[in-house]
């Protein structure tokens, strides 16, 4: 039996298979090196990086909910400079594309960040997070208004020649309108979805569980919403999509591919099983072998409706 062709290309980034790790759920890659082969997956996406180090929110920052979890990390990160000096050297030793997830507190910061990584050979591409729901400044606005999103994307497009992926928020009435605006402004691929805004309450203390009050819902609970959005957007835009949301298994990942995603990102699953991304990639390949599918590309958007 010849092996199926699992390789995909997203915005010019060549990947050995469609399984990437989602921003904020895989640290800076190194944390998982003891549990899986970092060269078994398609790409690594870093924790969201900002121009300056960010402290993030107070604790509690996470809480489990039915079939999912809420997080309000508040984008704690070392900042782009420390990333380059302390985290990137390790990633350089791993033969897997590294995509940097960027988050700006303002329009200008997005531009500066994009320029900052433009000449880093080790960075294969940029994923722009316009959808983080936790930080009051910026996040929610850029991610839910097509014109504001287009502004950010346009500026990033001007500031770097790296492959440009934009990550969409699900907290919108019309995700297709957001997708179109980003593509028109220069996005070469779209990632969807980021977390749904949610909340948890402790009835005994009569307080929100999270210090930040609200947080982002991720995990299996959101998979149906994510699948629906990928399917909707895939019928409206031509750029490749990266499906994200509650992917725990090869089956879940294949559902996103059929819905129209060229690749997928594994997020919360990394916490439950630090080898999840590798196992999902392997499981997808086995399924293709079993079904006699010669290349993963045949399945992209192959849903029969």
């Amino acid at each position: 039996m010849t092996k199926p062709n699992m390789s995909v290309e997203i915005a010019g980034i060549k990947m050995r298979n469609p399984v990437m790790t989602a921003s904020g759920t895989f640290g800076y890659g190194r944390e998982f090196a003891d549990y899986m082969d970092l060269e078994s997956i398609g790409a690594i996406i870093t924790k969201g990086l900002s121009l300056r180090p960010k402290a993030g929110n107070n604790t509690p920052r996470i809480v489990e909910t039915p079939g999912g979890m809420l997080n309000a990390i508040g984008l704690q990160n070392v900042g782009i400079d420390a990333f380059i000096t302390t985290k990137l050297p390790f990633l350089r030793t791993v033969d897997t594309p590294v995509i940097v997830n960027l988050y700006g507190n303002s329009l200008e910061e997005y531009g500066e960040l994009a320029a900052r990584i433009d000449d880093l050979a080790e960075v294969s591409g940029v994923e722009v997070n316009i959808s983080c729901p936790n930080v009051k400044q910026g996040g929610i606005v850029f991610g839910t208004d097509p014109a504001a999103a287009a502004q950010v994307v346009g500026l990033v497009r001007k500031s770097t020649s790296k492959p440009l992926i934009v990550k969409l928020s699900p907290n919108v009435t019309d995700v297709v309108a957001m997708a179109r605006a980003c593509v028109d402004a220069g996005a070469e691929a779209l990632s969807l979805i980021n977390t749904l805004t949610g909340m948890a309450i402790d009835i005994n203390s009569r307080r929100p569980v999270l210090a930040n009050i609200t947080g982002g819902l991720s995990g299996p609970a959101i998979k149906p919403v994510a699948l629906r959005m990928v399917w909707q957007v895939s019928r409206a835009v031509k750029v490749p999509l990266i499906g994200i949301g509650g992917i725990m298994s090869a089956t879940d990942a294949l559902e996103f591919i059929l819905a129209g995603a060229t690749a997928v990102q594994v997020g919360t699953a990394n916490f439950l099983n630090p080898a999840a991304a590798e196992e999902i990639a392997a499981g997808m390949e086995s399924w293709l072998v079993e079904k006699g599918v010669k290349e993963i590309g045949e399945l992209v958007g192959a849903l029969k409706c």
Partner: protein
Amino acid sequence: MQFQSQVLSNIEVSPGYYRMRMTAPPAVLEAAAGQFVMVKVSRAIDPLLRRPFGIYDMGVFVTPYTDSGTQTFLEILYKVVGHGTGMLADMHQGDSLDIIAPLGKGFDHGAEDEEKILVGGGVGLAPLYLLAKELVKTHRVRLFAGGRSKEDVLCITEFERLGVETYVATDDGTLGDRGLVTQVMLKYLAASRTPKRLFACGPFPMLRAVAGIAEEMQVECQVSLEAYMACGMGACLGCVVKGVNHSAETPDYRCVCKDGPVFESTDLSWE
């Protein structure tokens, strides 16, 4: 290390407290006291996240009915507080669990010539038992154990069997002195002059009190913290605590899972 484990036994040692012994690969024996395990309670998505527990004990036993087989085991001591621990309590011998262990930074035994003082509150005694087991080989060890009531003071006999001298205090006086265990400890520290080192695990207010006493008495002190965790390996940044240099402008967050759970008390901000 991630591995599939079988439950060997799961015994209620006090109302609402269980001790679970499970199989583990031999390499687990390299774990240090204070390190912890992350347990996936069910293969189903509920509960979703792994649950963290300190290593209470570990070792090797000879498997019965076979000539030379030995089996490495891990033990945890846990309190039923919610959904995940409730399901854990329902488990039987032979049930399987998915475990990641050992995780985090354990206790540093400290200098040779110190007396070792352990302070534990409730289920905070769990990681101290393994520590005591190691320390008694070379040191004099004293344990100050506290709890709300006598049911919450666990496994004292096990500590005594190691040769640890134990002092007990409960909030309601149903076992040992009535009052805070930290007060009992303070009295002992004030009366003794030998060099000492403190190792504490328990609820945050207790740890803060211990850290305060340590500072006052100029004794080195390590504390083992708890935090709500998603990953246990430094990836999610959910479990952070404030380091001593923390301020809004110069954030100094430490991951309980990776930088801890054991910290030098002077490395943390106790506000």
